[in-house]
C-alpha cells in the first residue's frame, strides 16, 4: 500500500531525535488518534540549519516526519512555512488516502515549530491558511479479522 519512497523513509528515517536547546519546537497530534509528531528546528539567519523529529505513529507518520524535516533543512523560514502537506506527500511519491492526515500533521508540526521560534523572538506568529487542519479522511478501510 505504501510507495517505495515511503517505505525507504520509514525503514531509514532521516533526522530522528531531539535537538538540544532547539530554536523552535512544534508538537502536534495526540495519542488518542495514534499519532504525535514533535519537530525541532535550529535557525540561523532566518534559515533552518537543522531539523529533527520524534514521532509516535504509523509508517506514514514516520516517513512524513522524515521527509518533512529533510525538505525544510536549508530553507528560509518563509520557504519552510510554504512546504505544504501536498509537497510532503508528493516527495514521498504519494500516500494512501487514509494516510493524507500524516502529511498534514507534518505541515502543522513545521508551522508550530516556526511560530514557536517567532514567539521566542518576540515576533507575531504567522497565521495558518484555512483548510489545513488535521483530519482523518474517509477512504479505503481494510477488513478486520
Amino acid at each position, binding site marked *: 500500500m*505504501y510507495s517505495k519512497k515511503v*517505505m525507504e523513509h*520509514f*525503514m531509514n*528515517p532521516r533526522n*530522528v*531525535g*531531539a535537538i538540544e536547546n532547539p530554536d523552535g519546537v512544534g*508538537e502536534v497530534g495526540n*495519542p*488518542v*488518534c*495514534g*499519532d*504525535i*509528531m*514533535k519537530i525541532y528546528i535550529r535557525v540561523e539567519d532566518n534559515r533552518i540549519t537543522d531539523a529533527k*523529529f*520524534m*514521532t*509516535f*505513529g*504509523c*509508517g506514514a*507518520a*514516520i516517513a512524513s516526519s522524515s521527509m518533512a524535516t529533510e525538505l525544510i533543512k536549508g530553507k528560509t523560514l518563509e520557504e519552510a512555512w510554504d512546504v505544504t502537506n501536498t509537497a510532503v506527500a508528493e516527495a514521498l511519491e504519494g500516500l*494512501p*488516502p*487514509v494516510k493524507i492526515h500524516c502529511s498534514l500533521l507534518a505541515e502543522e508540526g513545521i508551522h508550530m515549530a516556526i511560530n514557536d521560534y517567532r514567539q521566542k523572538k518576540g515576533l507575531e506568529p504567522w497565521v495558518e491558511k484555512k483548510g489545513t487542519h488535521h483530519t*482523518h479522511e474517509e*477512504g*479505503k*478501510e*481494510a477488513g*478486520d*479479522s
Partner: protein
Amino acid sequence: MTGQRFVYMDHAATTQPHPDVIAAMLPYLRDHYGNPSSIYGIARDAREAVEVARQKTAATLGAGPEEIYFTAGGTESDNWAIKGTAFAQRKKGNHIITSAIEHHAVLHTCGWLEKQGFTVTYLPVDGTGLVNPSDVERAITEKTILITIMHANNEIGTIEPIAEIGKIAQEHSVTFHTDAVQVVGAIPVNVKELGVDLLSLSAHKFYGPKGAGALYIRGGRRPDSLLHGGGQERKKRAGTENVAGIVGLGKAIELAGTDIPGRTAVIRAYRDQLTAWILAEIPHTRLNGHAVQRLPGNINISFAFIEGESMLLLLDSFGIAASTGSACTSGSLEPSHVLMAIGLPHEIAHGSLRLTLGEENTPEDIAHVQSVLPGVVSRLREMSPLYQKMKEQRVS
C-alpha cells in the same frame, strides 16, 4: 527479504489451505464442474461431494447434516443468522442482545437493524474480555428475539461462557446465535452442549479456502433467508454452490476436528512460552485478554509508547506476519473497539500487537520473533516522543 525466514503469526486473520484441502478441491474445479442442481453424471458427482462435506461439518459440530447450510464465509453466516432471525421474529419482538466486543460482521449488522426499527443492547465485558452471563439474563425483555455472543474473540482470544448463556437463552426461549469463526479447530465445538440455535463458521480460519463458510441452524428454527433465489441448500440459501469451496471446507473441518487437544497442545505451549518471554524481556508491556479462557494460539500484547502499524511494518521487514488493533491499519479514527471495551487507554490500544500461532509454527519461528521483536520495539521507542517524555519524568 528474499531467502530470509518467513514466520506467519496471523492465523486469526487467515490460514494457508492445507495441501489435502487443495488436493480435495481441484477435481471439483477441473472435472466435476457440473451444477449440483442438474441431474446428469458430473452434476451428481458435485452434489454428492457437497453432501459429504455437509456430513463432515455436521459430525465436527455434533449436529445433523440437515442442520448445516453452506455460505460464502463467516460474514454471510453472521448476517444471515442475525437478520434472518430479526425479520422472521419481528412480530414477536424487536430487541437484540449482543456484546461490545463482537466482530464487525455482528456489530454492523446490528447497527443496520437499528435503522430498521430494532433495538440492540451492547453488553459490556470485564477487563479480560468476558461477558457476564447474568448481564445477558438481566438484559432480556419481553421483546427480546435474539442473543448473539461470539464464542471467542478474534483479537484478544477470550473464550466466552457460551454454554451458560445457552442455558439462559433456552430458559427464556430466546434464539441464541454464536459466532464461532475463531473457534473451530481450536477447541471442541458441540452445538448441543453449547445450547445454541445458530452458529457461524468460516473455512479459511481453519486451513480451508477463503469464501466458504457455514451456518448451523438447529432443526425447527426458521430464520428468513438472506440470499433468496434458487432452491439450493434446501431452499434456505440460494445460489449455485461453490462446490470446490464447500469440498475444501469439508476436508478442512474434518482435519480441524481431529484430535484437537493433541494438535493444539504444541501451539498452546508456544503461546505460553512466547507470551511469558515477551512480558519478561520487554518492559512496559501488558497481556490483553484472559490468562486462561483463551484461544490456544492467541497472544495480544500492548507495547507502551509505540504504534502498532509501524511495528507491523518493521516486523514484516524481518519476515514476520502479525496484526494490530491500531486504528492506523484500518483507516478509522478509533483503535480496536475490543481493546477499548476491555478498558485500555487509546495510546496503549494503538500499541497492541497480535501474534496468532498455528499448526506450522516451529520453535525456530518463536526464536526468530524473540530475536527480532526487542530491537523493533526499542527502535520505535527511540523515536517516540511519548517514550522520551516518560523517561524525562522518571529522571525528574
